[in-house]
């Protein structure tokens, strides 16, 4: 069994209105050091497989088909054997 932790964020070239709003809120709280905020999604996916390579292929396929929208989003992941 593998546990995939998938982090989805908007591409750098895409304006993130939520991130901008959160940054403004941090600014107003006095955190002047904050340069940029980007919000994203976090997913945990358990994959029934004992083969890391196969699990990775499956995960990438699922991301490409459904989990992310490549027009606006990008992803990275950690894969842990359980």
């Amino acid at each position, binding site marked *: 069994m593998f546990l995939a932790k998938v982090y989805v964020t908007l591409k750098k*070239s*895409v304006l993130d*209105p939520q991130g901008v709003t959160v940054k403004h809120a941090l600014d107003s709280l006095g955190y002047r050091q904050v340069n940029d905020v980007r919000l994203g999604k976090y997913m945990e996916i358990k994959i029934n497989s004992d083969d890391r390579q196969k699990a990775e292929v499956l995960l990438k396929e699922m991301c490409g088909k*459904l989990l992310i*929208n490549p*027009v*606006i989003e990008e992803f990275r992941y950690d894969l842990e054997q359980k």
Partner: protein
Amino acid sequence: MKFGVVVFPGSNCDHDCYYVLNDVMKVKTDYIWHKQDEISGYDCIVLPGGFSYGDYLRTGAIARFSPVMKSLIEYAEKGGLVIGICNGFQILLESGLLPGAMLRNESLSFVCRDVRLNVENSRVPFTSCCKKGEILEIPVAHGEGNYYADEKTIKMLEDGGRVVFRYCGRDGKASKEANPNGSINDIAGICNEKGNVLGMMPHPERCSEKILGSADGKKIFNSIISHLTR
């Protein structure tokens, strides 16, 4: 002539579309449940607004894999007319029938109000009864209508005359104030290359009778019917 209105779990403008087509426009209309894997005998398919699958993951992302979609994509590729309204537009983007994606509205608020649209392309079946430059007043109601595509795609849409509707002011000119969601180039509706698939954020089915404040939406349904009877 027969219209079909696809119903996904969470669609909520399906009845309005059905009512306008069947009762106001007097054309035969069927509901098509999303589990139906074959659609045939239709002249135009409507993907209505709403919150299919609760907008889980991304708007339209799950609906795109409903059984009906495979058949709908084949139907569209053969030249069948498809109009996606609001969530229907989002589903068309996720399915790849139209390019681009939707982002959260720039304001982060759900926007529900009347907007004005400049009809920039009156050569497609959906605007065949409109004049180029005509202004339509139609309501929007969405949280994610901030249309986005990369520069190359936007150029392709603009150069190809595929921006069918653009948010505009009383004077017909696009402006930041007239745009309810921050969409690139004030885009409100686009079509595919062949012009048989249209996606639009505003809701023509909500303004197809004078008693509702505007009957401008009827011009779109009229256009489709007139195109089909020609």
